[in-house]
């Protein structure tokens, strides 16, 4: 062992420029923080912080503009893709993304997101699916699982009366306007690394002008699910992934050449 080497401090982990450092309001165990950080890291790595505009939505995602260190706007519930459309059409050389939960994207905002995808709107969408409305206290979402107990489906989601969950990525894979549609998960380091690559690919899709990109991120919500973070991860693996299989749902051929 050479003595000098011990004196050199090597930074192995630091806050990306694209994160503000503000303490988040997310609950303990929540995966929103991971998603925020991954987006920040990717934007840093692409050197795009000063050319990026984020669109926050309504739900637990609402305060993302406090955490990401770049220009941001805050959309009405469900309308983030429409706002992003307005921004991108006026400023086509900026990188524009929305960050939306499942209530926002797949319920009240379903029309806006479907049509943004169908138009091939050149924006990126990060879609956090945690199968419930987090901020308002764990109500049933369009993504809640059959039988899932929520504060508005207290004996479990009854598909006879409350219908079935929506598999958003599968649905969007059929839209000609969509260029990059994948589902990833945030439940362990391996999957988190895969999620980060997908976020990068989504932005690369946009930067190349290839059109609409969306990364669905399966997430946990221990507080509202009423179970520990560890058990939440287990539930995600055992219940959510079989219903919402991870994978690539649509990849534009021009993306094949990109190696990350």
């Amino acid at each position, binding site marked *: 062992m050479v003595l000098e080497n011990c004196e050199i401090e090597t930074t192995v982990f630091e806050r990306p420029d694209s994160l503000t450092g503000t303490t988040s309001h997310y609950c303990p165990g929540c995966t929103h923080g991971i998603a925020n950080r991954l987006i920040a890291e990717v934007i840093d790595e692409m050197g795009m912080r000063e050319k990026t505009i984020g669109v926050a939505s309504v739900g637990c995602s609402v305060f993302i503009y406090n955490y990401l260190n770049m*220009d941001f706007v805050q959309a009405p519930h469900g309308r983030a893709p429409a706002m992003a459309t307005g921004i991108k059409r006026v400023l086509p050389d900026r990188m524009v993304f929305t960050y939306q939960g499942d209530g926002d994207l797949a319920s009240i905002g379903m029309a*806006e997101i479907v049509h943004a995808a169908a138009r091939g709107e050149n924006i990126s969408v990060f879609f956090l699916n945690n199968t419930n409305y987090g901020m308002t206290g764990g109500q049933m979402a369009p993504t809640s699982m059959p039988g899932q107990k929520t504060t508005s489906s207290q004996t479990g989601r009854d598909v006879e009366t409350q219908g079935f969950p929506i598999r958003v990525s599968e649905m969007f894979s059929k839209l000609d306007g969509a260029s990059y549609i994948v589902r990833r998960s945030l439940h362990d380091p391996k999957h988190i690394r895969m999620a980060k690559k997908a976020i990068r690919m989504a932005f690369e899709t946009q930067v190349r002008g290839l059109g609409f990109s969306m990364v669905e991120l399966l997430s946990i919500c221990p507080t509202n699910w009423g179970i520990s973070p560890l058990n939440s991860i287990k539930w995600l693996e055992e219940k959510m992934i079989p219903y919402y299989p991870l994978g690539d749902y649509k990849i534009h051929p021009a993306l094949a050449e990109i190696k990350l």
Partner: protein
Amino acid sequence: MSLELMKGNEAVAEAAVRAGVVSYFGYPITPQTELLEYMSHRMPELGRAFVQAESELGAINMVYGAACTGYRTMTSSSSPGVSLMLEGVSYIAGTELPMVIVNVMRGGPGLGNIAPAQSDYNQMVHGGGHGDYRCIVLAPCSVQESVDLTVLAFDLADKYRSIVVILTDGSIGQMMEACELPPMQPLKTTFADWAVQGCEGRERRFLTSINLDPAAQEEMNYRLLKRWIDVEANEIRCQEYYMEDAEYVVTGFGSSARIALSAVRIARAEGIKVGLIRPITLSPFPRQVYADLSDKIKGMLVVEMNAGQMLEDVLAANRYRTPTDFFARLGGVVPFPDEVLGEIHRMVETPISTDGHPRDRWLARVLAKG
């Protein structure tokens, strides 16, 4: 001076283009659709943004996004579509962004019909979306004025960080008249210090309508109110006709005022000393004009194509000093000048009753006729 014969809706569109609108987002609805159609070819031709949105909700939120960039943006719709947009309108007001919205009014409530009406006065002037905010509301009565007020709308929107509504109707929108278009303005190159365009070389910015702290929200509401006081002090517009020696007054806005003008001219030719007051800004409302009406005025007739929505503002501004009557057609029925003339004759022949509310007396007359 070169005059062109244009439809009101298309004239507004071209005026907006020349005023430097960089993006337009809309949704088809009669009787506004020509505006959207015009923009669909005109904007791309100039390399500007046009999107036919999936709904009025989509359209107004695209405008919201575009407005955040500081560039001029607009949408247009007609009554039911505007109702759908009001969520976004409130958010845009709450974010203090400039934008222009054209409402080509039609008969309502509900789906109503597609004929000209003025029944969205209250919606545009006194509310619409939730929360404590006001929009500047401009009411043109001709194609030329639609053009002129469109240009003004963009300037006022920028000047006051305000929503400006051009409140027109199916009649003015569908009508062809001669108009002189403004020169093509260069697009904006400098932007306010709130515009979100990416944080290159500066601190990041964010635009939101959230104020979780009531004290901060109150502060914001005060700011809106202070700005509104400036608007009221500087931007009231109103046109008067034949008022110098008038003993009677007819008042109305937009189409009603035009129709009333025909009646007033005939009455003048008959020797009746009647004038016309036409508010051009409905918000801010020209209250002083009505407050200052001479005591020599023996009667005032408010004419609208709604059930007396502006009437309330006229009465309040006038403090019930001038004996006032009301006349209207509703639901998309456009009055003819001879109907208004009949009301002028009645006003001159029988002193106006001051019992009860003018609307109630009018309705009683309508019901009595059967």
